[in-house]
């Protein structure tokens, strides 16, 4: 017994030992001195440790060409922000742009060149060996067909590829899964030009979209959203007005749900609606119609509202009303595009909408030709179909693939054709489906690691510069091609030489200025267009709703996912965990089913439906929603990867499988197919949605005002009813307020303090969710994965709540989106229940959360009426842990100004307190006070519609103070007496009594 050592004594011995060790090394105080500090060899000139440096470059996540500024700390890119100098995005950025960082630091990047060996497996190869192989293969394949396939690539890099292909007798082709063939063909038909114009949403007085999802995936979403919110927002500052937005389409997309009115005609009949509206406008002289439009009279005469009402399923009166509204607004802008028009008669739909624009005089004023958007110069789907058949017939001996993944978006035909090509080379930096089918992979640098430029439109050239050292052993494809074509120098030299050729005089200054600004930002002159002779040549089948061909009794619309797009976003956990703005589903795919259809089939949300078209079949869990026509099923693309890294692979189903490989008459792809739908009997216990979540209150916390009422508001009005404090509680509330007042005179709380606040204009918010991803990036928020999202354990400090909006007939008209985040209550329910004072009130009015104090009782979360507190159920930062959120090198993008939280700790929105403290520090160094506008929260910074304003509510000259006093302003759950610091400004709806077809 005496030899046994009890636990207490054991600890004592242990204590002495470690104390002894500490005494030797560091006086026994503080942490063990094991951290290493590795100095620079040479200090980079433009970097100060602990201080961020910003570099201007161009976002390459889509073809829009937004300018970005990259925040670099100690050599790591930690955040992307929009470049305010860029005329395209004006300093804003979308969720996909924010997530570009996760492409840079993706743990599944290909680190070095790989070659397929005799047994069909990839093995490493060095760069020299790889290049020798390519050189040999090029020599071998000369005259037998060499093709270099890129994505939308209007750039100096594209020019280099063209030069090289000319040199070796090959050709370059470009492919985008969501091309704009219908738009191009429709423009050719109506105006004789197959180019893509720009659209001036900001100056529109009425926006009418025929399926064009201009807020999420159509052409240039950030630019359009910024313009749209200027036109569509209700601004009490000037004579109150707003442009009405009507959406025409079979399902509500992110764009559609922002509509004031939703018209859902039979899919494929949108063009008839446009013509009927044009007919009404012409015959009733509702607008100053250009003289040459008279030649359309006979065509339009066949499309009176009466003649088409039956086919499109909208009553005559509604058509006439829409025509009147549109024409009388004096600034109507109609746009057509998106998946609803990407079918058999897509080009004609666009041509019809062009005619509608033309008769109201929008062409040349709001629709401006001359910019020739770069994405309009990609090859058509028909060209790709031709390439596919050439490959199948062995007429392509050598194929290079760069910046596109056709094996995913064309799973059947292209994948098989790839097998017939003798040698395939991929430049992908990720093991996507196409790379996996290639023989040699020469991984490219990420766009943030290399030089380049892009020409998204005439007059604008975005310059791209390396902002960090390469993360892996990749090489820029530009350099590789220069080497392969036997030239000296790097792609940087090549790029500069090309720029020098354009601008010889004083080039060095010009170059430095362009680098600092992020590019050359000019505006192309508007090119006038007239109606072409073909404008009215509608085919005979145009008057009928297309049958879509094929078997099956269901019409299935395949649409691009707003975040994952054609699937390229699927390897980024931020985008996977970002709930789709409409369905609120994350991490997997779904099929949208109308409740009437679901009732007929006995279908519940989560039941799997097998969709079988003549091209392929796929299973999707059903999401039952009123936001889709009863005779239409809709599925998003983006998921269903068979490769592309840990976040994308084997996740849900690929909707592209349902589509055919045949081009339409105008050279596009049909995204509407006929299919049969059958229940599989499988059921997903919970689909990973945050809709209906306990967090998503569903308590009607949004306020909506009809336009007429909003216009009648005067300063000081309080149009919203909220629950008064009941009589019996008044004493208690008063007592509490007095005690609070007394405490506000103590210690730090004494004297004048700022009170940080936020104003969120729901009239501007579109629900695009860019703020959510920006918040993840700024605040080191962990992504938790599908399993934990299903269990409601996602960590989004800022979430978008989507509430459907119905008219008096209970017809769905759209949605109101409400960003929900910590309200930083003045009278916070979370604070008094914390047993360890981890949740407390800061002198500047924040609800502080001290991580190192928190013991994880979760009382605060229970007591929070807004449900905006998030608990770390696991250690998401644990290396190789089951739920690791930042596997190497993803951890490199962690913001060093923000603590990475551990298991057992509660967290929530801090109002970007690190930015507040940073601005305060800077102001103090400059011997001044913080000015209004110094502090910009991450959500505010990225918001494409400028819906969020941050500032000091105690500063009577601040923007947020002004907005907080707006009569449209209200607090969520104000009756609880929580005194939130966030003021929401009610959504204004432009139509009092919309009718629905």
């Amino acid at each position, binding site marked *: 017994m005496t030899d046994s050592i009890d636990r207490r004594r054991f600890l004592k011995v242990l204590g002495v030992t470690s104390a002894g060790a500490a005494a030797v*090394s*560091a*006086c026994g*105080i*503080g*942490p063990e*001195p*094991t*951290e*290493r*500090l*590795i*100095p*620079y*060899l*040479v*200090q980079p000139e433009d970097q*100060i*440790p*602990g*201080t961020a440096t910003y570099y201007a470059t161009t976002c390459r996540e889509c073809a829009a060409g937004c300018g970005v500024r990259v925040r670099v700390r100690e050599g790591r890119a930690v955040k992307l922000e929009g470049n305010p100098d860029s005329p395209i995005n004006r300093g804003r950025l979308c969720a996909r742009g924010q997530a570009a960082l996760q492409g840079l630091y993706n743990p599944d990047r290909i680190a070095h060149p790989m070659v397929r060996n005799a047994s069909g497996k990839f093995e490493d190869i060095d760069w020299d060996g790889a290049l020798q192989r390519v050189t040999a293969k090029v020599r071998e394949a000369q005259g037998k067909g060499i093709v270099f396939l890129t994505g939308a690539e209007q750039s100096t890099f594209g020019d280099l590829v063209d030069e090289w292909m000319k040199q070796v007798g090959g050709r370059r082709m470009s492919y985008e899964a969501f091309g704009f063939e219908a738009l191009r063909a429709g423009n050719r038909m109506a105006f004789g030009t197959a180019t893509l114009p720009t659209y001036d949403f900001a100056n529109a007085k009425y926006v009418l979209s025929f399926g064009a999802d201009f807020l999420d995936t159509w052409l240039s979403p950030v630019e359009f959203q910024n313009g749209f919110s200027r036109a569509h927002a209700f601004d009490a500052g000037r004579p109150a007005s707003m442009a009405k937005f009507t959406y025409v389409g079979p399902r509500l997309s992110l764009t559609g749900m922002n509509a004031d009115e939703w018209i859902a005609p039979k899919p494929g009949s949108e063009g008839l609606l446009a013509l009927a509206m044009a007919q009404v406008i012409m015959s009733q002289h509702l607008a100053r119609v250009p003289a040459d439009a008279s030649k359309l009279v006979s065509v339009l005469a066949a499309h009176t509202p009466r003649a088409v009402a039956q086919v499109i399923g909208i009553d005559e009166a509604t058509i006439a009303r829409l025509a009147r509204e549109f024409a009388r607004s004096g600034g109507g802008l109609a746009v057509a595009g998106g998946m609803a028009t990407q079918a058999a008669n897509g080009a004609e739909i666009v041509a019809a909408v062009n005619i509608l624009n033309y008769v109201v005089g929008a062409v040349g004023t709001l629709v401006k030709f001359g910019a020739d958007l770069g994405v309009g110069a990609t090859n058509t789907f028909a060209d790709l179909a031709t390439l596919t058949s050439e490959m199948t017939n062995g007429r392509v001996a050598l194929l290079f693939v760069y910046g596109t993944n056709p094996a995913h978006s064309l799973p059947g035909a292209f994948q098989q054709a790839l097998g017939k090509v003798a040698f395939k080379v991929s430049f992908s930096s990720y093991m996507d489906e196409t790379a996996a089918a290639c023989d040699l992979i020469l991984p490219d640098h990420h766009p943030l690691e290399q030089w380049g430029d892009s020409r998204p439109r005439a007059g604008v050239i975005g310059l791209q510069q390396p902002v960090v050292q390469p993360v892996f052993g990749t090489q820029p494809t530009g350099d590789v091609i220069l080497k392969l074509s036997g030239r000296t120098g790097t792609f940087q030299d090549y790029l500069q030489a090309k720029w020098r050729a354009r601008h010889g005089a004083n080039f060095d200054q010009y170059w430095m200025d362009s680098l600092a600004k992020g590019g050359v930002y000019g505006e192309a002159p508007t090119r006038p267009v007239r109606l072409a002779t073909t404008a009215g040549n509608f085919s005979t089948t145009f008057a009928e709703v297309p049958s879509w061909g094929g078997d099956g009794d269901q019409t299935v619309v395949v649409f691009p996912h707003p975040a994952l797009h054609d699937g390229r976003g699927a390897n980024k956990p931020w985008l996977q965990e970002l709930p789709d703005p409409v369905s609120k589903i994350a991490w997997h795919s779904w099929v949208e089913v109308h409740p009437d259809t679901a009732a007929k089939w006995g279908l519940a949300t989560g039941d799997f439906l097998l969709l079988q078209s003549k091209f392929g079949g796929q299973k999707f869990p059903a999401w039952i929603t009123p936001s889709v026509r009863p005779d239409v099923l809709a599925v998003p693309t983006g998921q269903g990867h068979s490769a592309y890294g840990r976040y994308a692979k084997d996740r849900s189903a690929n909707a592209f499988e349902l589509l055919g490989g045949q081009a339409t008459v105008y050279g596009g792809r049909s995204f509407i197919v006929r299919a049969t739908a059958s229940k599989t009997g499988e059921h997903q216990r919970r689909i990973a949605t945050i809709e209906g979540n306990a967090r998503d209150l569903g308590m009607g916390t949004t306020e909506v005002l009809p336009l007429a009422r909003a216009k009648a508001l005067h300063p000081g009005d309080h149009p919203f009813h909220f629950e008064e404090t009941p009589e019996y509680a008044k004493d208690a509330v008063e007592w509490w307020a007095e005690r609070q007042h007394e405490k506000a005179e103590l*210690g*730090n709380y004494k004297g004048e303090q700022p009170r940080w606040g936020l104003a969120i204009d729901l009239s501007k918010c579109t629900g695009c969710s860019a703020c959510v991803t920006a918040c993840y990036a700024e605040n080191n928020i962990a992504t938790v994965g599908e399993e934990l999202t299903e269990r409601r354990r996602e960590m989004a400090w800022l979430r978008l709540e989507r509430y459907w909006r119905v008219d008096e007939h209970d017809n769905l008209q759209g949605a109101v989106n409400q960003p929900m985040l910590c309200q930083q209550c003045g009278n916070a329910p979370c604070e008094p229940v914390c047993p360890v004072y981890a949740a*407390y009130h*800061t*002198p*500047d009015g*924040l609800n*502080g959360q*001290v*991580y*190192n*104090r928190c013991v994880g009782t979760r009382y605060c979360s229970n007591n929070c009426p807004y449900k905006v507190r998030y608990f770390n159920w696991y250690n998401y930062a644990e290396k190789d842990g089951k739920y690791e959120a930042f596997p190497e090198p993803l951890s490199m993008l962690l913001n060093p*100004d*923000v*603590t*990475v939280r551990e298991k057992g700790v509660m967290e929530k929105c*801090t109002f970007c*307190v*690190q930015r507040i*403290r940073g601005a305060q*520090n800077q102001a*103090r*160094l400059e011997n001044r006070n913080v000015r209004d506008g110094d502090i910009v929260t991450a959500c505010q910074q990225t918001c494409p519609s400028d819906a969020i304003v941050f500032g000091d509510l105690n500063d009577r000259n601040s923007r947020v103070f002004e907005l907080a006093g707006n009569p449209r302003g209200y607090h969520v759950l104000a009756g609880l007496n929580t005194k939130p610091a966030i003021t929401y400004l009610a959504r204004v709806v432009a139509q009092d009594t919309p009718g629905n077809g």
Partner: protein
Amino acid sequence: MVLILALPPAALSGQQAQSTSSPSSRYQAPVISDTGDLKGPRQPIFFRHDVHAGEDQIPCMYCHYSAAVSSEPGIPSLQTCIGCHQVVGGGSRRGLKGDTTAARAERAQVQLLRNAWRERQPPEWIRVHALPGFVRFPHMRHIKGLSTRQGVEANATCATCHGDVKHMTQVEQVSTLRMGWCVHCHMQNTVTRDCSVCHY
């Protein structure tokens, strides 16, 4: 090779303030024959703050150049070291006599540095002052606040937390760097004690 001898303005003024003391009263760093008794962790190169900051009176912010403008003080790059040690071979300061063991030992340490520079292998310094990950300590705010309050030049404020580094042969931690120690100073100076100023 470019010799970096230009001093940042803050460092310059600091040197001028110090150079008013007469050479005779100048501190002379001791000759060390046994490093075993020294406090603080042993570093890969026996870099002596008492020689550089004490005897040679190089202002703190000549090397830790970002301390007054940024939250991080900055660990000098090897280029900063070699800027002087390209020429200065060590072992020739006042206290050392000729080709003694002590002088050779000091020269050997400079040689380590030169080797590191030549081989492009920066030394891995052992961190002496470490704060947990959930604490933010903006150096610039403290330097600004202390120098304003005490009416002293920026380089004179470092010792408040780091102790008399100028006279340390091997740097050791003298303050606990614990929260009570921080708060004590904040109370004495009647500056904020709000949690969210340091913890976020």
